[in-house]
């Protein structure tokens, strides 16, 4: 546990000194602010729902860019060699990296509280929606980060890792919705179960559904497990 925290702290520190993390953070805030403004102007409704739904989609691009370097950069620089010859287990490495990026993600998410503040100043948003919405964003973020982390264990090229992560996330978040709408039997039933947006929309509407909780936690656990396994497998190649 202590080593996991040590690794997480290093990862978080690396985020704060790297320009990429700032650019991604700024890009994310800019996009979500634009989305927020457009929705208020056009919708004329002080609802947090479209904001959360929009952020969930923007994160499909933002998180892979944050996670792409997690292991790819270690492979590329060769620092993986000193890391893996230290007395740390593969699981500690994966969990440490996961926790480090999650911490950065939470900071990013916390900065969107500004939107909530603006909404309170000019309208009366539902506090329940705000609560479940942020809970949903945290669960969704954990799932996204674990997918990104997994993609990063596959290759030494950061760009490849980002593309793989975006592809996996886009298929869970966007493609599954399309398949459901196209009504391709029997695939649409499966797609409906895998559709991340379906579960997330419960949270953004203010509904806490354990199915969503289980879904996001399972995706997180699955990809963390796969990350540990791919990291282990590098030793055998």
């Amino acid at each position: 546990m202590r080593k996991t925290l040590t690794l997480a702290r290093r990862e978080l520190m690396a985020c704060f000194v790297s320009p990429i993390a700032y650019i991604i953070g700024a890009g994310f805030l800019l996009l979500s602010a634009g989305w927020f403004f457009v929705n208020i102007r056009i919708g004329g409704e002080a609802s947090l729902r479209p904001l959360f739904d929009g952020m969930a989609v923007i994160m499909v691009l933002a998180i892979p860019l944050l996670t792409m370097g997690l292991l790819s950069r270690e492979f590329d620089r060769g620092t993986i060699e000193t890391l893996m010859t230290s007395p740390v287990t593969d699981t500690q490495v994966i969990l440490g990296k996961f926790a480090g990026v999650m911490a950065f993600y939470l900071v990013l998410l916390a900065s969107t509280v500004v939107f909530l503040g603006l909404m309170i100043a000019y309208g009366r948003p539902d506090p329940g929606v705000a609560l479940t919405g942020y809970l949903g964003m945290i669960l969704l973020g954990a799932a996204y980060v674990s997918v990104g982390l997994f993609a990063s264990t596959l290759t030494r090229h950061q760009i490849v890792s980002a593309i793989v992560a975006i592809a996996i996330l886009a298929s869970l978040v966007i493609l599954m919705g399309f398949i459901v709408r196209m009504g391709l039997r029997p695939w649409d039933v499966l797609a409906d179960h895998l559709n991340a947006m379906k579960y997330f929309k419960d949270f953004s509407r203010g509904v806490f559904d354990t199915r969503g909780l289980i879904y996001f936690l399972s995706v997180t656990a699955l990809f963390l497990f796969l990350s540990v396994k791919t990291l282990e497998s590098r030793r055998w190649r």
Partner: protein
Amino acid sequence: MIDVKHLTKWYGRVLAVDDISFHVDKGMIVGFLGPNGAGKSTTLKILTCYQPATRGKVTIAGHDVLTESLEVRSDIGYMPEAVPLYPEMRVNELLMFRAALRDIPPAQRQTAIDRVAERCWLSKPDNVMRRRVGELSRGYKQRVGLAEAMLHNPPVLVLDEPTIGLDPNQIRAMRELIQELGADHTIILSSHILAEVEQTCGDIIVIAGGRIVAAGTTEALRKKVGTAAQITAELKGAEPPELAKAVAGLEGVQRVDHSPIGGWTRLTLKCDDKADRRAEVYRLVSEKGWQLRELRSTVGTLEDFFVQVTYEQNMQTAQRMAQ
């Protein structure tokens, strides 16, 4: 301390290490010598638990590298070949991070860092502890890498090409440091430069084409190496073939080559053994009344031996892999 038995490593279809066995006792400084691609780094990576072997058994201080990997890793300080470091971290931050990963109790971390910083010249004469690793010169990075490896005062130090990329002064300093460290650490280092291993290490393992081609103390190897002598003579007084033929008639001379050199003839004599035959050559020359301007005898060096054995071994390995 380190025991390697029948170690073999295949990378896909490439045979990197082919059935090598050796033993290193406590307190020894062992040099792994071999040309590039000989299997040195691969062997070191297996010793440090970075990669598993395809076959064979490696134990370090009684722990098996496969089944007791974490114990082995705690006992080893490893500096990989290219000295990979995190460029965005400051030197003291990096060492602090490593100290935490190395199970050094928080209260002792700063003391441990100060100790290695001083030994690796990171705090004196110039203090680079607050500089970012990415901004440091190659020599400083190498020292940071070594400091990292020594941080937890491990009984075994594994250094892959510790002096590559350093300037001559730094090489000398690094060599002295390694010898100092040898007093209380067991050290394995690799190099493709013979002179370096000869000066730093008490024991040498020559590896080529994935196999050990020679091993022993530096002294023993030097003795063993003493190959046949070679005499060079420059003379004048007859046609070159005639000179060569006359000299070839001397006892113990195996082969004579001749080449012209500005009106003189240079003869190169390959002898059967190490004996010095310059006196016989001179006697022959004076009997015939020829002129002589140079006469010198050379015995094969460790360098010649190294070149020869590694060349032969590489040819054999290429053949084995082709089969």
